[in-house]
């Protein structure tokens, strides 16, 4: 039973990772950039959710939507200001810019509101728990899981059934050919950033509900772990990010359950290094030979 309980916890945590990982994987699939600032968009999302719940006195779903909208705008702004001028620059320059933007958001938030943590209101949804085969499933984990599943289905729908989704797939396959076919590459990239950041914002609110504590530097570790999840599933592959996120969450919970909770953060990076060494294309990826 203990094992099943940890599995449930792991899936709740993993679905948060999966939501963040989706943004990483989409952006990497299109512009080949590790968007370090993504973890900080997640943090901003958590704070927007917090302020809309406490100051605007809204419920869970309206705050979730506000947070997603603000994060989408933030994501597009970051892309337009910092990444777009570097579209043809070296990869190192782009990566360093991403690190710079990440630090700027973190310390910008600290500068504006201070570094003190904030406690998420816990009475937002009734705290009941279901008993299922002797496993306690709290209403919060159900809500988080439900939200993530709905958002992921929505994302699949957008990517596979809509015009912008088709454009996104085309740009990620071959940017130049897509441009020749009359696709507005810049708008497509902005849309990708908007969708990815909105998902990160939702993950931020879910994280706040789950852990009840948020702070300006909280985006770093979940952001890195979500990146690990994206690499685990095969970066650039959307179902891979979901599976990678869930898998990472479950692995972490099992490691804590085995009594190594202090080593939990390290395990994610060990998984990362192992996957990069033995299967760099990820679980779902195919190996591609590099062209000269």
């Amino acid at each position, binding site marked *: 039973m203990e094992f099943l309980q940890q599995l449930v916890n792991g899936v709740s945590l993993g679905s948060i990772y999966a939501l963040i990982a989706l943004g990483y994987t989409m952006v990497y699939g299109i512009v*080949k950039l590790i968007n370090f600032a993504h973890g900080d968009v997640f943090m901003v999302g958590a704070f927007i959710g917090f302020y809309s719940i406490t100051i605007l006195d809204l419920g869970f779903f309206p705050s979730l939507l506000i947070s997603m909208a603000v994060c989408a705008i933030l994501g597009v702004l970051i892309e337009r200001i910092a990444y777009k001028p570097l579209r043809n620059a070296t990869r190192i*320059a782009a990566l360093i*810019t991403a690190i710079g933007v990440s630090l700027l958001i*973190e*310390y910008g938030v600290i500068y504006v509101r201070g570094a003190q943590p904030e406690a998420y209101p816990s009475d937002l949804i009734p705290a009941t728990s279901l008993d299922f085969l002797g496993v306690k499933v709290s209403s919060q984990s159900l809500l988080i899981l439900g939200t993530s599943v709905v958002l992921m289905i929505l994302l699949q729908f957008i990517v596979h059934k809509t015009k912008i989704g088709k454009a996104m797939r085309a740009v990620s396959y071959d940017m130049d050919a897509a441009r020749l076919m009359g696709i507005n590459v810049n708008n497509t990239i902005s849309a990708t950033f908007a969708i990815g950041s909105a998902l990160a914002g939702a993950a931020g609110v879910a994280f706040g509900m789950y852990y009840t504590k948020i702070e300006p530097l909280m985006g770093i570790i979940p952001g890195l772990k979500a990146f690990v999840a994206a*690499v685990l599933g095969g970066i650039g592959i959307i179902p891979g990010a979901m599976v990678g996120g869930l898998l990472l969450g479950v692995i972490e919970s099992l490691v804590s359950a085995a009594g190594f909770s*202090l080593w939990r953060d390290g395990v994610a990076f060990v998984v990362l290094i192992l996957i990069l060494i033995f299967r760099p294309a990820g679980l779902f990826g195919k190996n591609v030979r590099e062209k000269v």
Partner: protein
Amino acid sequence: MNILRTAKGFWSSIVLAIVFGVVMQFLITGEIINFFYVNTLYFIGINIILAASLHLIIGITGQFSIGHAGFLAVGAYASAIITMKLELPFALGLLAGGVAAAIAGLIIGIPTLRLKGDYLAIATLGFGEIVRIVFLNIEYVGGASGMTVTQLTTWPWLFGSILLTLIVIRNFTNSTHGRACISVRENEIAADAMGINTTYYKVVAFAIGAFFAGVAGALYAHNFFIIQPTNFGFLKSFDILIFVVLGGLGSMSGAVLAAILLTIVSTFLQSFPELRMIIYSLVLVLMMLYRPQGIMGTRELTSFFKFGKSAKGGVNS
């Protein structure tokens, strides 16, 4: 003829540096400059070693490693164990710090250096975090509360280490091996096709860089009274990365200048930590947008004194 001329410049610059070191020693022992400035000087020195060692990995060999704080941590803890737990002399601690970090560099380098670009960056970042978490969980070195260390770092040790680091890295860059490393940076596939053992040179550069980072770690540990795993998070790695990027990828004098400049700036901004990080990150972003090659590009300081000639050493791109 040419060799003789560079050799002459080489020896005269060493003599100049030693004169500078001795003068500083007199100023410190005579208490002409006060404690605050001496402390800043030590900071600058440690950062110069770190910047030069990362410059060898990123600037010369082109391997984008962002886990340098991991090597710093390994060096700091290894030397602290030698001097504090085993009560051996500081010189041995300095050496042990370097050797331990070089071994860590080999362990992480041999498997991960097959990765390229972003993936290598992420793997090294992961390595840095793993090192931090390992030290956090080992009770022998104090866990999260850290380890107390007596202050043993003195100006002669520090200055000697800086001089040694700069000489070794400069001579390595100008040697056959250094040129092989530069060819790996410029185009790895082409270098491989020309018969250069790219993996070997990448690992060698990684190990040498790690060694000096470890020496810097030993000096760092013995300059403060306590070392904690939180000192070696990846913010520290970014600090070191910023020196190299700001100075210009591929320019050792650029990295050294940036280390001096930024250490002074951050010392004076110490009382506004958030503002300091905001300025740091803004500098980083604006630099990448408007001058991605850094202050010096791939040129060295000496190239300014040789009019009409290209610099020896780094390759002009």
